[in-house]
């Protein structure tokens, strides 16, 4: 290959689509390293503290798409204190200096300030796409800057962010000359937007294919929008509050009938069951349906809707659908690949939910199922064994039994055998979340059989250090391990310290790891950052110098080339 001109090598590298493959070829020899780095267009940084931003831009000056992730996954469930870190500004500053040709930026679980959005808006003349997922720290002022300055913006996708509402004028900041939008998602915004400006914007953006509105958008406005955007492929409705006798509702039905390209629907926040009928005409074409924000719709209405959706590939619902509803899904949605069933009753008022029966029904009917997130009240080993047999193609399997540590209700046994069957049968399993009563045995199975496992989430499980050690010694592709409320201590933590350099990160909270254990890990492995995150309340009560025997409440360990970070708040100790 060294006899080929560089352009040819570069052209060959173009065929490598995954980051991992490109990373590997860059290690073959200096020549390949050079060709690869200059031709790399898409860079993915899984942990923003693993490497300095400047270094990334220096190595890949031609970067057009940059993805960066910040906080650990458990931050989604409020386990990471608010100002832990994960700031986007250094990345945007470095990109502004080193890669002014940047076109796309994707950030997940990061703190993005209005200042950084303003810098972003002014620094990249070719900027086309901004995707922010589970971020916080910005307001509609930052969005106004993006709308104002990013000429040629194609995509603005805001998913589940915390955005401060500083008024509705941000949307009006898209100039009249802006016609390039293809995807606009502001579903997570709490405030109102200027409906007239929105309607004019979507009307002039003829390539718009994905539009996700927020709750403040009325049905009247939705109907007017749909009339202007008949080529939409993805739609997130607004509140959908309408009296079914109202004229607006009739106009909406009419507008839906014109949208022959619609394949994905979400939103439906306040929809009354009767108004679901308005989308029956679209259902036969739907491949994606997200009803997880519509707690007002009970099982029977959901079922009536689902019966029309035979092309569905991805379904997100609340557990009001019930086991019987899931049986209807199983018989109707033969193309189903991904199912998420969320809990609707988090205060235990005792309303209907789903059990192992629903899952077994789904597994019998939907042979293509490969991704599952399932919140339920109970699960049995027999059911899991059946599911494992019916669906050997799972790549993601996340089960959350709402009562932590609950055993199999039929046998009172732990769920070790059930999960063991899953890992044995599903050879492509990349992500697994466990729940229910579990002993060290389940980890023995995981370590032995889950060869492709990359991410494992553990809560209230295991008996002893052996459990964690089985996983660390066994799963050779493990990248992320997150553990809460489980009896793993220093012995497990220190058993295989080299393992952590092969992983992105390890999170342990409310376990038995002590400060002394963390210090020992940090001393042995200088290329890991061992962060001890102290609970605010406790740190007021804590003495100046806690003893090494003190149990650590939250610990986050990650490999890094950047050394200890300098933006850590005072409640984080980097050992």
């Amino acid at each position, binding site marked *: 290959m060294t006899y080929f001109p560089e352009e040819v090598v570069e052209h060959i590298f173009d065929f490598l689509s995954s980051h991992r493959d490109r990373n590997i070829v860059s290690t073959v020899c200096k020549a390949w390293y050079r060709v690869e780095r200059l031709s790399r267009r898409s860079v993915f940084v899984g942990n923003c503290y693993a490497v300095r931003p400047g270094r990334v831009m220096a190595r890949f000056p031609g970067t057009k798409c940059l993805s960066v992730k910040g906080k650990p996954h458990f931050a*989604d469930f409020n386990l990471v204190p608010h100002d832990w870190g994960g700031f986007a500004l250094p990345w945007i500053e470095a990109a502004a200096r080193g890669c002014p040709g940047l076109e796309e930026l994707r950030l997940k679980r990061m703190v993005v300030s209005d200042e950084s959005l303003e810098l972003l808006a002014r620094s990249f003349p070719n900027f086309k796409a901004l995707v922010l997922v589970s971020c916080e720290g910005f307001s509609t002022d930052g969005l106004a800057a993006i709308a104002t300055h990013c000429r040629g913006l194609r995509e603005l996708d805001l998913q589940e962010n915390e955005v401060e509402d500083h008024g509705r004028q941000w949307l009006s900041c898209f100039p009249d000359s802006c016609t390039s939008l293809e995807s606009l998602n502001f579903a997570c915004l709490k405030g109102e937007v200027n409906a007239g400006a929105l309607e004019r914007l979507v009307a002039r953006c003829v390539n718009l294919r994905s539009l996700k509105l927020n709750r403040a958008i009325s049905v009247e406005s939705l109907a007017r929008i749909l009339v202007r955007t008949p080529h939409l492929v993805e739609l997130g409705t607004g509140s959908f509050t309408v009296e079914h006798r109202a004229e607006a509702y009739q106009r909406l039905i009419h507008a839906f009938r014109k949208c022959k390209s619609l394949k994905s629907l979400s939103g439906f926040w306040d929809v009354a069951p009767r108004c679901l009928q308005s989308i029956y005409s679209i259902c036969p074409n739907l491949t994606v349906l997200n009803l997880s924000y519509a707690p007002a719709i009970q099982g029977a209405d959901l079922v009536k809707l689902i019966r029309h959706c035979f092309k569905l590939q991805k379904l997100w619902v609340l557990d009001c659908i019930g086991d019987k509803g899931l049986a209807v899904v199983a018989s109707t949605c033969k193309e189903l690949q991904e199912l998420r069933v969320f809990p609707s009753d988090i205060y235990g008022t005792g309303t209907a939910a789903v059990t192992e029966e629903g899952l077994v029904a789904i597994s019998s009917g939907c042979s293509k199922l490969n991704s599952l997130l399932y919140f339920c009240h109970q699960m049995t080993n027999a059911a899991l064994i059946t599911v494992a047999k019916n669906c050997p193609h799972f790549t993601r399997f996340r089960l959350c039994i709402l009562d*932590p540590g609950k055993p199999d209700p039929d046998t009172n046994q732990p769920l070790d055998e059930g999960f063991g069957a899953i890992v044995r049968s599903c050879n492509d399993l990349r992500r697994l979340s466990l729940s229910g009563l579990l002993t060290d045995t389940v980890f023995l199975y995981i370590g032995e059989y889950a060869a492709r496992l990359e991410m494992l989430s553990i809560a209230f499980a295991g008996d002893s250090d052996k459990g964690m050690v089985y996983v660390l010694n066994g799963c050779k592709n493990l990248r992320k391990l997150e553990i809460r409320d489980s*009896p793993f201590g220093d012995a497990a933590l220190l058993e295989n310290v080299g393992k952590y350099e092969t992983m992105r990160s390890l999170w342990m909270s409310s376990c038995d790891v002590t400060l002394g254990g963390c210090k020992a890990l940090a001393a042995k492995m200088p290329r890991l950052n061992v962060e001890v995150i102290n609970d605010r309340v406790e740190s007021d009560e804590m003495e100046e110098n806690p003893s090494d025997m003190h149990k650590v409440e939250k610990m986050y360990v990650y490999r890094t080339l950047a050394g200890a970070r300098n933006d850590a708040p005072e409640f984080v100790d980097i050992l």
Partner: protein
Amino acid sequence: MGDQSNSPSSSIDSSSHPALCSTSSSFQTRRDLLSTDLKLGLGLSTSALHGSSSKQREQLSHWPPIKPLLRSTLEEKVHRSHSKTFFVKVYMEGLPIGRKLDLFSHNGYDSLMRTLRRMFRTTIICPDTSRVPPEKAHVLTYEDKEGDWMMVGDVPWELFLTTVKRLKITRADKC
């Protein structure tokens, strides 16, 4: 990316599960802590088993593992069904100063009558009583959406709630 609850109180009581006897004691303590947290969260009274440190109360918001947007949507649904009020004016004939009454805090006509009797200290007759009303009795009437004054009690409670604008207690001998 999740890119996307609690079981009834009876199943939270972990000490009733025989299988748990075999688990390590620290694990059981941890689960008992959580079960206390869950009870605190559900607003059920509990004896001070483990004391309620703010740390335990903080733990409560971390289970089940759902994202903030879904949690707030579900919480809102709960609040909506609990806190909605519908106050109407109530006048008694002969008294210039009226009262206000939350109809949503009552689940039917009986409950409403009891409250009114207590508020105005008078006997209020229901339309279905066949006894001859004593002179000092009153009847309950309401003004509906069309502005007409009707006797309370003829239509189902839920329908009544959708049409009532205000109430008036008038002397029985006037009807």
